[in-house]
């Protein structure tokens, strides 16, 4: 039952936000809904980690380890994004636009929360399509020509991906003809050995291509830097942090199904596709000119890392993959919050125009630097640990070539990100700094930065036992 409550809370908040009740009602309602959903999600996740069963409608709305992790992440990042929005969007003068923003925000969160709790693949497709559609307005919110162009490219490419994957999901349904299991993720794993190979492979490839476009895997990634940089920063945090992860989660659900047939080496495909994305993204990071695009390309890179890790196989690599999902969601959202704070300070997205940020605004500069270091994978922060565990498991599995490539790409990206950020944060104060009136950063933004930053530091040093159990259960969801 709690699952249905979690999903319907943002719906309620959306309706409240829509009503003309004053400027502060919408953000508070959104925040309240997200916090409640996060708390409920935490309880459910802990229940699952302890070995219990959480479900609302048998074979339609159920929660397993992997789903619980994703649900928890969505709810957490939604909460921090809602908190950040409160201060960030307060600049928006028209109350009507603000209400529409929050209404869409809540609908977006609603659709995202629905994806991990649904276990029937066809409705999962519908939920993912809904997330795409609700995101369109948010991406175009700034209403500049660039934002509208970004929204157009985003919608066309992702909806096309969804349309292509539709056939894949219908083919997947065909598998239920060959056994007695229900049409759910776990049911498909049970059925897999008896299903003809061409059914599963054709479905897999259609969904890989279609949803790969939605994740931003190369070569269908062209919309991602545009959309994830032109949207308002809290929305970028949601998009990069959880939405792409959600779509990747759906692709990852297919891997154990195909592995269960025992007749096809789909892991190899996962490694290849993942490595291509990591490599191209790493090199594109080097030539970026806009710091939000920098973080967006980093998202593409991390999606590739997660896919490669899932393909490397073995319990350790799967654990590394879900660990990376967790860390990426938290860290990337923090990065975008930092970018949003910096944007408030210097009012430009171009890296070349920002210098000496640490002098102009210590908070923004420190946050940006911290976020950049964290996402690049420097110790002793969270992302370093997960990437390291992935590389170690790769060597253990004897995938030497793949692991070496992965390490090389990650190092390239590391230097790229740090190089750009170094120039931005340190160095002599930039031209804009002279005429810049010191902007007073909203309290909620600063609060969000602190709240979002704490887990990144903590998780780099210490892993709480319940979380460890949750990650293990999630990793089991990747194994067949």
């Amino acid at each position, binding site marked *: 039952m709690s699952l249905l409550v979690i999903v319907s809370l943002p719906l309620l908040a959306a309706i409240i936000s829509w009503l003309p009740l004053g400027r502060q009602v919408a953000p508070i309602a959104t925040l309240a809904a997200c916090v409640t959903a996060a708390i409920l999600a935490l309880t459910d996740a802990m229940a699952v980690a302890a070995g219990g069963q959480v479900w609302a409608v048998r074979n339609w709305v159920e929660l397993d380890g992997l789903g619980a992790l994703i649900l928890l992440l969505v709810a957490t990042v939604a909460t921090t994004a809602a908190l950040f929005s409160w201060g960030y969007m307060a600049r928006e003068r028209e109350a009507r636009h603000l209400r529409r923003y929050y209404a869409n925000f809540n609908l977006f969160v609603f659709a995202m929360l629905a994806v991990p709790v649904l276990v029937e693949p066809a409705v999962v497709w519908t939920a993912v*399509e809904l997330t795409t559609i609700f995101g369109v307005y948010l991406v*175009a919110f700034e209403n500049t020509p660039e934002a509208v*162009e*970004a929204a157009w490219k985003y*919608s066309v490419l992702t909806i096309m991906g969804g349309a292509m994957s*539709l*056939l894949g999901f*219908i083919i997947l349904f*065909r598998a239920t003809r060959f056994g007695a299991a229900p049409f759910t993720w776990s049911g498909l794993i049970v059925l897999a050995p008896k299903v003809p190979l061409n059914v599963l492979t054709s479905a897999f490839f259609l969904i890989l291509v279609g949803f790969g476009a939605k994740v931003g895997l190369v070569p269908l990634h062209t919309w991602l830097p545009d959309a994830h940089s032109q949207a308002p920063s809290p929305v970028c945090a949601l998009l990069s942090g959880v939405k792409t992860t959600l779509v990747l989660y759906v692709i990852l659900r297919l891997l154990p199904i195909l592995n269960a047939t025992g007749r096809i080496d789909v892991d190899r495909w996962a490694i290849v596709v993942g490595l291509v994305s990591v490599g191209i993204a790493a090199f594109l990071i080097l030539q970026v000119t806009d710091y939000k*695009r920098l973080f967006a390309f980093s998202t593409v890179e991390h999606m590739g890392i997660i896919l490669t890790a899932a393909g490397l196989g073995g319990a350790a690599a799967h654990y590394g993959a879900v660990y990376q999902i967790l860390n990426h969601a938290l860290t990337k959202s923090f990065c975008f919050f930092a970018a949003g704070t910096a944007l408030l300070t210097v009012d430009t997205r171009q890296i070349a125009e920002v210098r000496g940020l640490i002098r102009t605004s210590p908070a923004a500069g420190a946050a940006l630097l911290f976020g950049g270091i964290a996402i690049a994978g420097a110790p002793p922060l969270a992302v370093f640990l997960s990437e390291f565990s992935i590389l170690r498991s790769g060597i253990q599995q004897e995938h030497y070539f793949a692991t070496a490539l992965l390490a090389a790409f990650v190092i390239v990206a590391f230097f790229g990100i740090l190089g750009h950020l170094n120039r931005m944060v340190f160095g002599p104060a930039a031209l804009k700094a002279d005429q810049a009136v010191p902007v007073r950063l909203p309290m909620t933004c600063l609060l969000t930065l602190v709240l979002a930053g704490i887990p990144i530091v903590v998780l780099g040093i210490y892993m709480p036992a319940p979380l460890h159990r949750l990650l293990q259960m999630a990793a089991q969801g990747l194994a067949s």
Partner: protein
Amino acid sequence: MGHFTPLLISLNSLAAGVFLLSAFGLLATRQMQGCVRFFRIQSLAVVASIFLIAIEMQVSDLIAVGLVDLAIKPVLIPWLLRRYVREELFRRREIEQVFNIPSSLIVALALTLTAYFLAAPLPVAAGAIGEINLPVGVAGLLLGTYTLAARREAVTQLIGIFAIENGSLLAGIAIAPRLPLVAEMAFPFDMLIIALVIGILTRITHERVGTTEVGALKSLREQGAAK
């Protein structure tokens, strides 16, 4: 229904033929109105195929799906497009495209051949009547993708997406005629929402960017990025 079967199979073949023809028509037409018209014909062909397979396989769910599709695709979606995309965009007669029409048609031919070979290994649940849906549906999918890539106009890109969904649905009802009703109903409503959102987005694009030639938008790039 045994002795009706050959007739139903024949009519289904006819529907598939009309579907394929309209998929080609999408590529061969120069006018915006022509695109919408061919999309309507294509949707009607898909609905006809849904009804025929529903009668032959005696699946009552599919009839409901067919009715919903009939209401949404040929009727509501063009109406939505007219309402939200400005009239002047429809009156424009020429659509910008990347290749000229004869070359596009030859590519379309190659795609149809590819579709036949791609669809060969796929399983058909609907028996003899559904055999033709698969290659034609996959061809519709590929041709829709090509329409999307080769056209620069906003509305035609949207119609390309719908063509992809039409193709997926046509192949899908042959592969899985007994998909749960909930899931089947979700597809046309999803298309409706997409039409609404993209229609509004097109109007906003026209207002902010000044043109709906969205394929030619290139301001967001590394080298020449504007603020």
